[in-house]
């Protein structure tokens, strides 16, 4: 049984999973994430190794093939769910921000908000 290690994802974890929607090898992940985020998010090699290792044991990603020691990975269904969960959470955060600071409330959220009150 996978440990309940990751309730939420850090930016680096989020981008690794995002990047692995297409099969990709470890070394390339560092480059792609850096490009995706215009160098805002960089993943150190040590952290990359640890995260990939943990993700494999959590079942978020799976190793697809090894070529000349180059290991490639791709996201699994569990990983996709995790990514989706994180996306919804982030979305909820921005929505709440808008509700409580700018007063911009979309109808759906207004209902929930009023009901909760």
């Amino acid at each position, binding site marked *: 049984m996978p440990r309940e290690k990751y309730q939420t994802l850090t930016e680096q974890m989020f981008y690794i999973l995002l990047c692995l929607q297409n099969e990709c090898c470890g070394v390339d992940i560092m480059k792609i994430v850096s490009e995706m985020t215009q160098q805002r998010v960089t993943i*150190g090699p040590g952290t990359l190794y640890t995260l990939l290792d943990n993700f494999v044991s959590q079942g978020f990603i799976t190793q697809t093939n090894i070529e000349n020691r180059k290991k490639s990975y791709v996201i699994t269904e569990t990983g996709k769910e995790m990514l989706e969960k994180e996306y919804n959470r982030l979305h909820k955060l921005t929505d709440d921000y808008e509700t409580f600071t700018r007063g911009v409330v979309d109808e759906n959220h207004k209902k929930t908000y009023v009901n909760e009150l």
Partner: protein
Amino acid sequence: MKTTKRLMLMNYNYYKEIEQKLEHYAKKGLVLEKMGPYLWTFKKTEPQNLKYTVTYFAEGSVFNPHPTDNQQTYFDYAKAAGWDFVCEYNQMQIFSSSLENPPEFETDEKEKLENIHKCMKKSFVVSQLLMLVVFALNLFLRLNSLERNPTDFLSSNIDLAILLMFFSIILYLSYTLINYYMWYKKSQKSVAMGGSIIDNFNKTRRYFDIVYLIFLFSLVGYMLIHLLTNTGFGIIALSVAQLPLFVLVFWGSITLLKRRKISAKANRIISISLLILTGVLYLGFIFYSISQFSFPERSNKPYTTVDWEMYEGMTREYRLYSDKIPITCEDLYGNIDFEYYSYETEEEDTPLLHKDHYSQTRPPMKNAPPELEYSIYKPKFEFVKNIVVSDLTKLDDWSDRKLETLDNAIFSTEEAYAFYYEEPNGKQFSGEYILVFTDKIIHIDAESPFTDEQIEIVKSKLLIGQQ
């Protein structure tokens, strides 16, 4: 390329300090090439601006014949980020980069901390705990010997030094472990709050380590000097040689098997078994050597030797000393015409107890003239006096020897005791006395109880009641 070795007394978990030290060395033109437990090899080059990073990799091990596949992947990631693998020792991995601003090796403090902790639990913590157990066991044995023979123990500097050494090592190991766990807990808290790992590079701790090492080396140095001045060179050579021998066998085996590309598991089993086997064989060798060549004690005092026939065909060499001792058998029993007496004094002064031992002994023989032995103890603390008195007056379970309290007026004592045996015709005193004074305790072992006249001689010769 010229290389040089440097002693690196770094705790396994001082990664920050190691990085700084290596960067400092590189600036001076010393570039790390290989690392070992203490001696690290450096290449002599032009001064360079290198950045170092020290990380831990769970699969790393001194027994691995070559980096594991996962480790290779790890190196590849590092290389792609501009970090070149330099060397490893157990789980510790060192990378360097000549880039001016190389990317951070670890970019997630929580993962970094958990990884360090995972590796530390596997090697650092285990080895510290193992050493703690070994030294606790040794300390227990020493304490046991202190309990059995407190007087001898407290008047022996070497015994006290060994006890102090074990005790301090245990304290130090506990301190390092507690320190590590405190660092881990604090870092965990900090990371959970979104902060970074607490810096474990701490000047006070470094000074503490240095002071402790100096203390430990002086203790070991003292013990070696003591061995050198008190025992034969044979024993010294045997006991000093064992450590380098064990290290040589263990490392030799690991290196050799590694070169033959033997698996880590087989290497570990073979090398550890070989080490244990060497230990057992060496112990056997020591016992054999002692039984064959009986290493004599070294002595700076003048003596003559006599070859004494113990029984048909078996002679033993006896040393006859002629030290000055306060009371002799001649003082007590009148002139004795005997040329094989050995008069010997031994003095030992520890911070707790001063001991003077005097003896007039002879080789074993029939119808022999009397022997005499006595010790004068001067305890430096009241509690030591109490320990010595209760030790000397202790009765053994296995002997029917009993203790009689004597009148203090006889020897002008605070307390006085004589040992006797219960015989059918009444108490038979053995001639062994324990005399307790304010500042000293005298333990006399004569062959027969003293007459009034002899008591006066003892009192005057040992300056009792005349201070």
